[in-house]
């Protein structure tokens, strides 16, 4: 039974993640924390949803079908869609981090190196 948080009512978070298990864990946990959740499983879907709806935050995976996370970030920059993006990925190289940050992401986190608690804590910092 999800409980509604009083802290951030009505704030919708878009989870862009192609792995169904990870997507599910993040969705459940954030919902539990009181956020409204929307999900996308590839780059095109992510961009489509971002251009039609308004979100408080996007958690973005980098390796996704159709368009990868880098392309999504580049497209957002090009279309001037302003939304805070936190990148959660399993690509662990510092050059990936540099590229993502230069494309305007607010943060870069290697999923295998953080706990789900840390993920939630990070999201809350930006919403």
């Amino acid at each position, binding site marked *: 039974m999800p409980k509604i948080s009083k802290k951030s009512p009505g704030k919708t978070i878009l989870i862009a993640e192609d*792995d169904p*298990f*990870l997507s599910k*864990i993040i969705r*459940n*946990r954030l919902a539990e924390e009181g956020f409204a959740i929307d999900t996308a499983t590839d780059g095109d879907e992510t961009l489509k949803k971002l251009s039609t709806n308004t979100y408080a935050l996007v958690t973005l995976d980098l*390796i996704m079908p159709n368009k990868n996370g880098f392309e999504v970030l580049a497209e957002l920059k090009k279309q001037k869609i302003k939304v805070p993006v936190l990148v959660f*990925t*399993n*690509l*662990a*190289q*510092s*050059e990936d981090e540099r590229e993502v940050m230069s494309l305007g992401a607010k943060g870069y986190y*290697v*999923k*295998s*190196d953080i*706990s*789900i*608690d840390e993920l939630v804590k990070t999201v809350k910092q930006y919403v």
Partner: protein
Amino acid sequence: MSIHPFTSLIDRLKHAIAHEHFGILSIRNRLLIAFVVVALVPSLVISFNAIQFGKSSLLNEKSTQFFALSNHKAGQITDAIGNFKNQISTFAQTSGPFAEDAEFFIANPSSKSKIYRDFDQFLYNNPAFYEISLIDPNSGIVSASSTPETEGSLRSDSIYFMEGKRGIFFDPFHFSAAPHDIASTFSLPIRNRYGQLLFVLVAKLNHESLSEFLSQNYGLGETGISYIVNHEGRYVVGMELGIHPPLTAPSGSDHPILDSKGIRNALSNRRGGSVYENFAHGTVLGYYQPLPALNAGLLIEQDLHEVLIPILDLERLIVFFSLLALAIALIMAELISSRISRPITQLAQLSTSIASGKNVSIPEAAPVDEVGILTQSIGQMTDHLLGSLSDIRQIIETMPDALFIVDVDGAIVSANSYAYRLTGYSRHEMEGSKFSRLVRLQEDQAYSLASKTSKTPVVAPDFDMLLKTGTLSDFNLLCVPKKGVPIPILLSKALLPGRGRQPNRFVIIAQDLRRQRRYAKERVDAIVPALSRMSLGDFSFKLELPPQNDEFTDLVASIQLMADNLRELVEENQNKAAEIFASNLKLRKSHSTLLKTKESIEAEKSKADALLGSIGEGIIAIDLRGHILLMNQQAERMFDRETKAVLGTPFAEHFNFQDQSGKPINMESTIFDQVVAKKSQHFTTIYFARSDAERLPLATTLSPILQGKKLIGIIGTFRDIRRETEIDKAKSEFVSLASHQLRTPLTAVKWLLEELMRKGGFNARQLGYLTDIQSSTGRLITLVNDLLNVSRLESGVLTIQPKPIDLGKWIGEAVKEYRFMAKDKQQRIEFEKSTTAIVLSIDPELYRQILDNIVSNAIKYSFNGKTIAIKLVKNSHGVTLSVKDQGIGMTSNEKKSLFTKFFRTAEAAKFSTTSSGLGLYIMKKILDISGGAVTVESEKNRGTLVSVTYPLHGMKEKKGAKTLV
């Protein structure tokens, strides 16, 4: 003995004197010619050159003078015109008194008195002007003029009318059909105070005022003239200011210089310059100076003949002096030659009398000069000759052979003492008698070849005939004296050529052969046996020298010497033959060895060539000057160069190597710094831009070629690593993606476990299992990261980007995190550093990997509650970071395998389960590629000290594609 040399000398002298004396070019004439040539020719050449030089100098000087003169005059004219312009401008100024009068005049056209008064006043005050008029600006008709008869005439098409409406305009002079109309004209507008144009004022300039400056012709001689010239359309118009008045307007044909090519060029270019023209009436030198203020130019000219007068005078002077010098030279030559030739003539006469054998008196010439010395020498020579003559006479008288002088008819002219002794006749009996009759001759039977073959007595040859034509020494003859037996003799004769009137004669010498024959027989008898022994090869004899020294003495000595030499030679040759034989044998052996060696060298060379050609790497060898010595086929293909085209040429010229970013690499300095200076191999990856635009990455090894310790060249090995690079890239990308794919499910497991454990509700055992699963998942994630790092380190794609870091401060930050990690095992972490900052150039990510590895191991393998000491020290060798733990330690055997992949000691595996066994391997790899070093000291169950040292310059920079995870 002959008197020939003496006769010949006299003859030659006589001949020479006669030739000199009567020849056409006598000494006197030659001296005359020499004098004239020496005295006159150089002075004529110098004079000619001086005249030429003078001419060109004069022309140069004149040009300079013209330039200065025309400049001066041009300045004066320009100033004067400026002055006139001021005068007329002041008169016509807007809203001035004249402008007011002009306005009044417009209002009252019939009342011109004010205007006329103004005109008169102006012309009176400014005598440079001679006429002043007002022109209606609309109709162009002269409304009022100081020369009233021009009033009513039309000026609408004149340039000064048109230009004068706009502002002040100066027309220097104007060419039209009517010559009297030429005038320098100022025209300018007259305006009222509202700026309305009332009239065009035209003021004509009195040319006397200009020519006042120009009429002086000083510096231009008598033929000098100055002109002001203008160029209108295709006509040249000139004004001859020097002869003003009256003003003239000469056309081009009247004044050739105005229509000349030079002046046309000067005018059309509007530039100054010298003018040098040949006209029918003479040559003119001039200078053209532009006068921009007048829209005209100034021309000054002078007749060239007048310019050159000083030089022409000089020329006449030189001709006069040359003739004078010729006359003096002739007189001098005559005087000197007569002084020299007189004594020579005397000498010639003297010589002639010596030659004719007369008694001579030697002239006493004082040796004051060369001729005197010559005369004295000839006197001395004559003395010597007379002395020699008496010597010869003495010799003839005392010689041991008979000498006869015979005339061409065979009659005896004279004879010597021995001749009388030999024949027994007196001088009286002998002189005048026939040589053939008085000295009776018959064939010597004993020596006659004819007598041996025939018993018929041989008839004596016709001696008189023989005397003239034959050779007497061919016959064995006998002299039959007045009394006694015939004496064998040898006759020789010589012709005494007749001199002057003296006819030819013969000298006949008869040698008495009796004594000589006796000697000869004795000597020959002694030699013959020796010669026959020599012919048999026996050289071991001793000849006795004849008791008396004669012509055989030398012969005997020679034979003895020859025999001795031959004996030595024979002995020596026998030894030599043996030696030659031995060395010949040796040579044959060496030759066959050499052939074999050559074959094997050729075989080795072809093997080496095949080997070099077949290997995959390009190979280039260069000498110490950087010239190419060798290049294999692979290198030919790789660099697209033919060996024969580059052999022996500088290496650096041919190959434009680049670094990864495309910057050119100076291979010469790389070779020198890395290989020649260090005498060690150098490995690098360079790029070669081929002409087909492809860029080859080349793994390059530069190795010194050493002969003993001496460096003799460098060999470069180039491996095309395009394929390897591609494979590396693909591999690296694969590993990167693969590790990503591995991490994703591991993350899911990890997070699910976290969620499960968060929700809780498990008993102790279940919670224990879940913790173990969590730990294993953690290890798997670490393992994936470590494997990815190993892959990057091993493939060499890792990048190193050092930057200066304050290491003490930086490690201090990390230590805070380590202390947090160490809490679980109640361990203390101490960090000791110097008070001064230690700044080192490092890649912080890599250094952190090293630090993390050592410290996490120390925490992992230290016992609970112990202290881990971290220490940072800088000395002259570098910066050392050491970490000392109090833990399980290891044996020296285990220590050996410490840095191998997946190595863990048995104890360690038990002690900690969360290690992948790759940490230290990764650390060692990082140290290797970044130029660091590690030492490990350890004692079982006591602890381990790990020290990492970097040199003072820090990490080596390296360009690669990847960083570590």
